[in-house]
């Protein structure tokens, strides 16, 4: 059940250009995959259109992720990508929007696809991009008190500072104590 790429590209170009005009920057295909580059202001409306329009019916949001372009010196620094799939029509498309470093915000598509819940939280955790309108935008993989966003290019592989851990030795080693005291201390440690 091969999908006619050119037809879909034509359809996307016509419908989206008509509705959103210059906010749709370009539609390209590479290795058999379609990419729609668009302004970040229209992400939510485009998503809703693609979800509801009977010609597209992109009802399945596979994945949301982000790329940090700072190592290549590109501005704007981030780009967020949404991978859409249609279980009815069996076609795929990728939306990409640039997000500048000064104002790393983009609209959340949670109201369209609830699968965005975890993936947007992950992108926020790893890159620090804020998805406006997400009901519960917290860190998901790193601890809540973690400092920094690990997948940014300026974050080193080994981390910036190591967590401090109590060494495995008994903190009261060497202190004289009787049995009762020792057990009380153990209880309070646990």
């Amino acid at each position: 059940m091969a999908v006619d790429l050119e037809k879909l590209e034509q359809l996307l170009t016509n419908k989206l250009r008509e509705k959103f005009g210059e906010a749709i920057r370009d539609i390209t295909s590479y290795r058999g995959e379609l990419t729609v580059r668009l302004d970040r202001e229209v992400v939510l409306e485009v998503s809703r259109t693609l979800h509801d329009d009977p010609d597209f019916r992109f009802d399945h949001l596979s994945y949301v992720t982000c790329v940090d372009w700072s190592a290549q010196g590109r501005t704007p620094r981030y780009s967020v990508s949404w991978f859409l799939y249609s279980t009815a029509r069996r076609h795929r498309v990728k939306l990409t929007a640039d997000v500048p470093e000064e104002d790393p915000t983009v609209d959340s598509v949670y109201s369209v696809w609830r699968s965005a819940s975890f993936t947007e939280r992950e992108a926020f955790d790893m890159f620090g991009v804020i998805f406006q309108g997400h009901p519960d935008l917290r860190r998901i993989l790193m601890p809540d008190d973690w400092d920094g966003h690990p997948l940014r290019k300026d974050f080193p592989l080994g981390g910036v500072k190591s967590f401090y851990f109590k060494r495995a030795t008994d903190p009261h080693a060497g202190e004289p104590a009787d049995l009762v005291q020792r057990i009380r201390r153990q209880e309070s440690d646990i």
Partner: protein
Amino acid sequence: MDIVVDAPGKAEDKAGTDVLALQAPENALTKTLSEAISYCRRNSIWPVMMGLSCCAIEMMGTAASRYDLSRFGSEVFRPSPRQADLMIVAGTVTKKMAPVVRRIYDQMTEPKWVIAMGACSSCGGMYNVYSVLQGVDEVIPVDIYVPGCPPRPEALIYAIMQLQKKIRQEPIYLFN
């Protein structure tokens, strides 16, 4: 009160045991008793469930039908640390997980032993990154390290046999 049976003369070495270190001379009764206790301990090591990642699958494989860990008395994986005396740390310990591992270790009753299963829990393994603890021995003391990524079930069984050997050599404190 500490009564050291198996290693006479070692009682004063234990820090903080100032009460009545009764150095019982080795006799037939205490020798037999301590051997019996040691025999029971080393042949019924109950591990706590500490399957963290990939190694957990090999740990399950060790306990399951082919390798049958119950031949060595260690197949009773306890969900509660209170009922266990061995912790097989099977898998990568991340920095988020490390306090939990330490807590579960603290909740285990004495005497307790730890096997660091696999490269990750021994030294961090292939993950030298911001989120992974470089070896579980940074938070809890480890008795046996098992190399491999993941170790084969035979390696884990060998580690448990080594642990049995170690327990056999340990002194038994009858009252503590």
